């Protein structure tokens, strides 16, 4: 199905419907927030998933040792009441004594140790394994409410990983006698979060109910129903008819057309996702190609009108041009870097200096936001670079890049909602990543060094050096940050957080 066409037509049709009769809206009468998601919910176990939808759900159903305060991005106690570094390679974590799982059992140190040891067990095949194995050797029970973590390596993101990646499971959750069941929590989740699952029909509907024994602040809304509705036009109709109260990832044109309706509000907040063009400075795909010349890369930076893309294509809500190779709110993402403002004349001059007065031909790969890709293509062509836009599926781009066939691509990265430069830097600037096309060993060294110290000042310093050098050498063309757009019924108060992660558990009725 041509979803874009559906969306556009749907938007037009729905907007035209505004002139007609008023539809009675379901309010908070049954204290049930109904949310729509396009992506199917198939597995409730965040230890075995990675998509954004699952992060949203896991925050409602699961508990973690620590939590991240979305208002200030600071890590705060969760199931853990405190922690202490015994030495560089050992952390003791104290647990609260009032935490209960959804089946009524008390959460204790054995559950925590089991969860972490299970994740790093190669047999678990958990999606969190690669991340946690980088720093954890084993977890040990000291007493009912104390867990000792023996580290495999120093990692500054340990507490953040505990807060955002490891959802706590009951001791033995994945074991039935000698049998291992990786899917034990996929459909029948026993978490310890503010909501418990009462019904789950994979790919169709998830019904959550407030968990009265939750140890933290109780959410205000009693029930949350998440429905999978693949078509955006249908979601709009459900919103207009009162079938749902909340939808996200709403394209701007759709959001604006429905915002005119008094019963519906359009909310736009920041999102940690950024877009950028990765340039083959090392000549991986094209040895001695034009992109190996610094002046060409700088010219491309000057050629693209980022503010207009942010304002007119991304919607202006919370989208901003970016100049560093990370999101400005991320820790370590220094903004004190050389900036290449939009200046096509300067771009042409630089190209001429580099020996390309008539420009050159370039395959530019892209997989998201085609209008943005076309605007970028137009800007680059305006200074003489003849762009062959290779707009493909993400998987195709990934394969081509793995085969070292890509000289330039428009990438995007959401950093899994984590406001730390580590989440974007390592995967794009480490020598084991096929995304790393700069060939600059010094940048790699700084990026990896930043992950090998817990000293935050030192980390900031490493990132500052790396990000500055990336800008100086124009290894990337940083483009824009994204805006998170939502449509909600006007009786719903839905807070927007800086990391762009929707937190339905914090919603309330007005």
């Amino acid at each position, binding site marked *: 199905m041509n979803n874009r066409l*559906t969306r556009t037509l749907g938007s037009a049709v729905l907007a035209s419907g505004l002139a007609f009769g008023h539809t009675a809206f379901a309010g908070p009468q049954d204290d049930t927030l109904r949310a729509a998601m396009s992506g199917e919910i198939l*597995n409730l176990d965040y230890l075995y998933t990675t998509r954004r939808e699952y992060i949203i759900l896991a925050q409602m159903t699961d508990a973690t040792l620590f939590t991240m305060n979305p208002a200030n991005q600071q890590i705060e106690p969760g199931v853990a009441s405190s922690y202490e570094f015994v030495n560089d390679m050992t952390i003791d974590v104290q647990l609260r004594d009032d935490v209960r799982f959804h089946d009524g059992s008390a959460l204790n140190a054995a559950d925590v140790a089991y969860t972490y040891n299970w994740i790093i067990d190669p047999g678990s*095949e958990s999606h969190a394994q690669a991340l946690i194995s980088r720093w954890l050797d084993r977890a040990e029970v000291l007493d009912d409410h104390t867990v000792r973590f023996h580290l495999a390596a120093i990692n500054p993101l340990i507490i953040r990983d505990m807060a955002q990646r490891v959802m706590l499971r009951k001791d033995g959750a994945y074991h039935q006698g000698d049998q291992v069941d990786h899917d034990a929590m996929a459909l029948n989740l026993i978490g310890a979060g503010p909501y418990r699952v009462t019904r789950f029909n*994979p790919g169709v509907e998830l019904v959550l109910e407030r968990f009265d024994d939750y140890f933290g602040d109780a959410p205000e809304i009693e029930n949350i129903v998440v429905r999978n509705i693949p078509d955006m036009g249908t979601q709009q*109709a459900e919103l207009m*008819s009162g079938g749902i109260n909340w939808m996200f990832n709403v394209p701007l044109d759709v959001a604006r057309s429905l915002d005119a309706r008094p019963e519906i509000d359009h909310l736009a907040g920041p999102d940690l996702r950024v877009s950028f063009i990765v340039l083959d400075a090392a000549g991986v795909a094209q040895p001695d190609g034009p992109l190996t010349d610094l002046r060409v890369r700088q010219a491309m930076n000057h050629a693209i009108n980022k503010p207009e893309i942010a304002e007119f294509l991304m919607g202006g809500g919370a989208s901003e041009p970016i100049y560093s190779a990370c999101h400005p709110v991320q820790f370590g993402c220094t903004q004190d870097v050389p900036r290449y403002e939009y200046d096509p004349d300067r771009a042409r001059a630089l190209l001429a200096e580099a020996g390309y007065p008539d420009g050159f031909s370039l395959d530019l790969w892209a997989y998201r936001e085609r209008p943005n890709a076309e605007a970028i293509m137009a800007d680059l062509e305006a200074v003489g670079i003849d762009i062959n836009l290779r707009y493909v599926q993400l998987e*195709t781009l990934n*394969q081509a890049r793995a085969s070292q066939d890509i000289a330039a691509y428009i990438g995007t990265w*959401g950093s899994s909602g984590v406001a730390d430069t580590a989440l974007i830097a390592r995967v794009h600037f480490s020598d084991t990543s096929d995304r790393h096309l700069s060939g600059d060993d010094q940048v790699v060294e700084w990026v990896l060094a930043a992950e090998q110290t817990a000293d935050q000042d030192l980390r900031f310093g490493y990132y500052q050096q790396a990000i500055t050098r990336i800008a100086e050498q124009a290894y990337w063309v940083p483009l824009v940050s994204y805006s998170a757009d939502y449509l909600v019924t006007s009786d719903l108060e839905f807070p927007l957080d800086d990391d762009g992660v929707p937190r339905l558990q914090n919603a309330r009725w007005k």
Partner: protein
Amino acid sequence: MINYILQRVGLAIAVAFTVSLAAFLLLNIATDPAYAIAGEEADPEVIEQIRVRYGLDRPLWVRYLDWLTGVLRGDFGVSYYWNKPVATLVGERVGTTLTLAFSALFVTIAIAIPLGAAAALNRNTWIDSLALWLAVSAQAVPNFWLGLILIILFAVMIPIFPVSGDHTWLHFVLPAFVLGASSVPPVMRLMRTGLIEVMGSDYIRTARAKGYRGPTLLLRHALRNALLPVVSVLAVQLGQKVGGSVITESIFAINGLGRLALQSILGADIPTVQILIFLFALVFVAMNLLADILNAALDPRIRIR
């Protein structure tokens, strides 16, 4: 006749397997399922882990042969995306899609046959023009657009039907209309042409001479023969409804095989996509076969041949 049917069944299975092989190659060459399964921001280690877990690191031909022998044993494999046996997935949803397909076929019959008959019996009048205009319009309107219009009219502005879902029979009314409407034009035109031809034939003149008029003439003498080509088309249309439910099921969030097909394609879920393509191809060919058998049953001359 039996030989003919057996020959056709063999050909049908060959067609279905050819289609599945082509789909398998295209899916695997165009994309790496491990990336799709892992998600956009998965670590390279996770992607490699998935590749090994699902056997995606094996040669293409080995994977296809594995699948093929599995199907012959009745083992459709396990879905990468849903992490369930494909047979279970299909079994859970086939009823929903068949309900939708038959409802849509009912809509087609209920609209197209009376409309075609009315057009034929009132040839070159305003009724005929209106029927043809409706047919052209219905053919020009894309399914997803008609779906959205109906949702706006009958679920939002005049909330008679639910917007989406498949919990009650009411949920099937709008999608059945959408899916059924797309088949109205060919069936209606065929009905009109067939009836015009039959009404001008000698045996109808004879029947008139014997005093038959009006509904008796139409129902007892004309329709039986006029319906012959229509039955063939309706059988094929039923096959198309099953395979063509992808868009309608997605728009109305109906949890049937069409939506499963779309989800599986987007999720690069090769075991599920393979079986669905195989099933859709089988249904389509089987419906063609059924059409031939029905025609033979309705027309003794075909049986004699």
